[in-house]
C-alpha cells in the first residue's frame, strides 16, 4: 500500500528541467550521502554522441536491502535517450505477439459437415424454395461459409530498424520514467526469496522486475531466490525484448549488461544494413 502511495506521489512530481549530465561538483555533494568510495566513469564510445549529452545513472547494489550508490555511470544518449516513440513500441509488441501466433480456430464447410448428399426435395413443383443440400450455409446445422480454418499463421517480420529503434525507445522511456536501474552485479547475501521481495518493496521497484545480465548463467543465490517469485525474472542480454521490458514494471540491468546492450545497439545503429533491409524494401524493380 505505502509503496503504491509513494510511487503515485513520485509520479505527480513534474520534472521541468531536462535530464542533463551531472557535473563533478554535484557528484561531490552526493558523496556525503552514503557510500565512502564512488566510482565515476566517463566513457569513450566508438560513436561519440554529437548533439546530446550522455545520461548519468547511479550504480546501485543488490547485497543490502537499503540502496547504496556505488558510483556514477554514463549511458549513450542514442540508446538510452532516444525519442520515446509509442508507435514504434506498439509495432514491436504487436509483432512479438503475432510472430509466434497460430490461430487454431476451425469451422467445417458444407462439404465437411456430415450428410447433405441428397437433394432434400425436387427442384420444381413443391412450392418450396429450391435447395440442393441440407448442409448449405443457409441451413441451420449447415456448413460455415468463409469461416476460420485452423493453422493460420500470423507470422511477419518487422523491418530491421524498427526492431532496433523499438529497443532504444523502450530503454529510453524506461530510463526517463525512473524504471531502469543499473546494479553492479547480481550477488545476493542469501538465497531466500523474502530478501529479494523485501528489497524490491523497499526500493519501490514495483511488483514485477526484469533482471538482465550479460551472461546466461546467474549466481546461485539470485536464481534460487527468483525461482519461487513469479514476478521477478532473470534474462540474458540476447533475450532482451520490448514485450518483456513493458510487461515488467522495473528493468534492472547489470553494469556489463548495460554496456553490452549499448555496444550492440550502437553497432547496429551505425552499421551498413542495406543487405538486411533489402528484402523489406517496397517497390522493388
Amino acid at each position, binding site marked *: 500500500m505505502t509503496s503504491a502511495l509513494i510511487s503515485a506521489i513520485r509520479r505527480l512530481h513534474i520534472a521541468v528541467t531536462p535530464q542533463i549530465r551531472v557535473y563533478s561538483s554535484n557528484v561531490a555533494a552526493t558523496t556525503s550521502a552514503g557510500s565512502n568510495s564512488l566510482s565515476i566513469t566517463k566513457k569513450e564510445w566508438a560513436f561519440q554522441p554529437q548533439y546530446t549529452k550522455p545520461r548519468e545513472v547511479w550504480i546501485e547494489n543488490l547485497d543490502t536491502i537499503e540502496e547504496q550508490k556505488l558510483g556514477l555511470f554514463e549511458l549513450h544518449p542514442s540508446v538510452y535517450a532516444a525519442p520515446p516513440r509509442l508507435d514504434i*513500441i506498439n509495432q514491436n509488441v504487436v509483432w512479438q505477439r503475432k510472430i509466434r501466433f497460430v490461430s487454431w480456430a476451425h469451422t467445417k464447410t458444407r462439404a465437411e459437415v456430415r450428410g447433405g448428399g441428397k437433394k432434400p426435395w425436387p427442384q420444381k413443383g413443391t412450392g418450396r424454395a429450391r435447395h440442393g443440400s441440407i448442409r448449405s450455409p443457409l441451413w441451420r446445422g449447415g456448413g460455415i461459409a468463409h469461416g476460420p480454418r485452423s493453422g493460420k499463421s500470423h507470422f511477419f517480420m518487422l523491418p530491421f530498424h524498427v526492431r532496433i529503434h523499438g529497443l532504444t525507445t523502450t530503454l529510453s522511456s524506461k530510463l526517463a520514467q525512473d524504471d531502469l536501474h543499473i546494479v553492479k552485479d547480481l550477488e545476493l547475501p542469501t538465497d531466500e526469496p523474502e530478501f529479494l521481495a523485501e528489497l524490491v518493496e523497499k526500493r519501490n521497484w514495483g511488483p514485477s522486475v526484469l533482471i538482465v545480465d550479460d551472461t546466461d548463467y546467474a549466481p546461485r543465490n539470485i536464481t534460487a531466490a527468483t525461482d519461487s517469485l513469479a514476478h521477478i525474472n532473470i534474462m540474458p542480454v540476447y533475450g532482451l525484448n520490448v514485450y518483456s521490458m513493458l510487461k515488467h514494471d522495473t528493468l534492472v540491468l547489470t553494469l556489463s549488461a548495460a554496456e553490452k546492450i549499448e555496444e550492440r545497439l550502437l553497432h547496429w545503429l551505425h552499421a551498413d544494413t542495406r543487405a538486411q533491409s533489402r528484402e523489406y524494401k517496397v517497390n522493388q524493380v
Partner: protein
Amino acid sequence: MGSRQITEKSLSMLRSLPRISLGNIRDNPNCKKNPKRGRAQHGGDKHGAGNKGSGQRQNFMRLGYETGNNPFYLRVPQEHYYRGQHLRREYPPLSLHQLQNMIDKDRLDVNQPIDIASIVRSGIYNFFPDLKQFGVNLTDEGADIFVAKVNIEVQWASEQVIAAIEKNGGVITTAYYDPHSLLLLKNPKKFFESGQAIPRRMIPPPDAIEFYTSAKTRGYLADPEEISKERLKLSQKYGYSLPNIEKESNYEMLCEKKDPRQIFYGLEPGWVVNLKDECILKPKDQELLQFYNS
C-alpha cells in the same frame, strides 16, 4: 528550438506520465487503412467503382486493340534497333568525378592498386554480373578535375580517361573478367565462406579479344613495350609531359598487375582461403598445379 530539445522535453514529460506498459500503448491514430469496404446505407453504394460499364465490370479491351482498326503498333513497320541487345555486354559507368570523390572521402585507398573489388567495397558503385554487366566503364566526366595518382584496373575506358589518369602519373589497365569471377570480386567474403578453391579467370570472348589485347586501350593482354610506346604517343596527342613513374617512391605499387588467370590481388587460382582459421590452403598435387597454371 532544435529537435534535441523535443527529445529532451518529451522524455521529461514522460516522467510525470503513467508508466508505459502493455496496456497503454497504441499506434499512431489513422495510420492503418481499413481493409474492409463500407456496407451501410451510403458507404456501400458503388465502392468507388462508378456507375455501370467497364469501371464496374473490368471488361477492358486488350491493350492496343482499336475495335477492328489496324492497330497503331502494327501500322508502323518494325525496326530492330535492339536486336541482340540481351546478349551484349554491359559496363555500368563510373565517372572520374565519382572516382575522385571516393578517393577524397577516403573510401578508396590510393596506396593500393584499385580493382573492381575495392570499387564495389567503397559502397558507391554496384553492378550485377547476372544481368550481363561486366564491370566498370570509367567515363571522362570530371576528367579536368581528376588529380589522383592511382594504379587502377577497370573493364572499359575511353582514350580521354586513359589520358586523364596517365597525365597525373597513374597507371590504368583494362581487364576482362568472366561473370563468375565478377561474382567473386563483388562479394569475396561470401565466396571464401563457401570454402571453395579460387577458380581461374577465363579468357575474353572472341569479340572482346581485340579490345583487351590492344595497347591503345591498355588491355591486360597487350605487350608492355607497346603500351609504353602508346603512353608516349597519347601524351603527345593530348599535349602533356608524361611523368616518369620509374622514379616514384611507390613505383612497385604502380607496376603491380594481376596475372591474366588471377582474380584477386595476392591470391592465386587454386588456393582456398579459410576465414575461420585465418589461413590459406595451397594445392600441392602436380595435376592440380598444372590445371591451375594452364
